[in-house]
């Protein structure tokens, strides 16, 4: 929304008139009703469970409904070490989720392989195969960190514009919603990374070295 419109909206609200846009209303509804997938991989999953329980209470952010089927979920929290044997299943679960869908890579293992990076059996970050929206470092991250990641995701949803070239993937038929599932090769996963997904993010200080 243009800045002068925003100012007008604030000015109107000062005078007791509430205005909104379709985009704001739509994104407000979406960001407060994210349904994560009941899906845990390792010790991070325990922190994820703690986040949903009474003490940290993820329900305050509208995400208390964990769905046991990818068909009913729109957020996958990759919580833990992704082994090479598990990676195809993670990608397949992501492919089975309906758009719009989001990914939080939780913890050192999910974002890079973590302490097991040099192991023969561990995938060096789930962002090699699926697009990750929010990365959380930590080993494991505390529930507060997961809540922070969740709020970051909400902010991201809120700021999506519904039209134009930078509209989100679920509103752009040209962009893929499924990604190739890696295959078990003789020495490791094939391909080792999906370069359509695993590339530099615009504006990020991190660069992928080929």
């Amino acid at each position, binding site marked *: 929304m243009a800045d002068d419109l925003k100012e007008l909206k604030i000015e109107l609200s000062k005078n007791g008139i509430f205005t909104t846009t379709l985009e704001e209303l739509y994104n407000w509804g979406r960001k407060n009703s994210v349904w994560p997938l009941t899906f845990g991989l390792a010790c991070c999953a325990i922190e994820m469970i703690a986040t949903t329980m009474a003490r940290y209470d993820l329900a305050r952010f509208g995400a208390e409904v964990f769905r046991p089927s990818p068909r009913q979920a729109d957020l996958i929290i990759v919580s833990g070490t992704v082994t090479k044997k598990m990676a195809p299943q993670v990608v397949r679960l992501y492919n089975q989720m309906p758009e719009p869908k989001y990914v939080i890579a939780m913890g050192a293992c999910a974002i890079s392989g973590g302490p097991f990076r040099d192991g023969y059996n561990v995938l060096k970050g789930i962002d090699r195969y699926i697009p990750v929206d929010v990365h959380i470092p930590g080993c494991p991250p505390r529930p507060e960190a997961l809540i922070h990641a969740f709020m970051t995701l909400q902010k991201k949803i809120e700021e999506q514009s519904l039209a134009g070239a930078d509209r989100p993937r679920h509103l752009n038929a040209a962009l893929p919603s499924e990604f190739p599932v890696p295959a*078990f090769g003789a*020495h*490791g996963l094939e391909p080792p990374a999906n370069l359509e997904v695993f590339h530099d993010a615009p504006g990020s200080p991190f660069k992928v070295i080929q």
Partner: protein
Amino acid sequence: MALPSPEEIKAQIEAGVPGATVTVIQNGSPSAQHSLLLDHTHARTVAEFLRDHAEWRLDFCSLVTGVDWPDTETSEKVKVRKLVKAADGTESEQAVDEVRKTKVPGYLEAVYHLFSMEKKHGMVVLRMRTADRGQGTHLPSLTPVWRSAEFQEREAFDLYGIVFDGHPDLRRILMWDGFVDYPMRKDYVPPPDDAPIATEVQS
């Protein structure tokens, strides 16, 4: 009743199983967990002997693991007499130091830890060694004697490539079926799948 010393166990095995050769391998550490090295032909009979022994009753195999002992090279300095050409062209016999290298072939080893549930004692450590690390990585399976060894022998097969003859279902257990390497061997090289890495670029 506590278990006797490894030497005593060795003596009783060799008396009870005709033809079996058992070597006691000393463990120099403070734990002093000495182990018994079995020969391939009699390993299964020895295992049954230990399991069914009236006083020991080693009825529980708690652990099976593989160990990789890679090929090593030892070098020693030897004094040899040799014809040496001096600077002025004359040859004379002199004592010269020469480095001799000996290749010691490696092998794979399977280690079994045995306890007795009935007599509440343990542990007895068994070892078996393969002929080499290439083609001859066969060992007799002890799964027919202790059922608990089944998955752990599969694991040793998966990660070290020890082939257990007589195992009822020898397949890979952790890695997938199409995988060809043995990742816990010392000379395992991970695939270059790790080539693309994300790093922070200093500007």
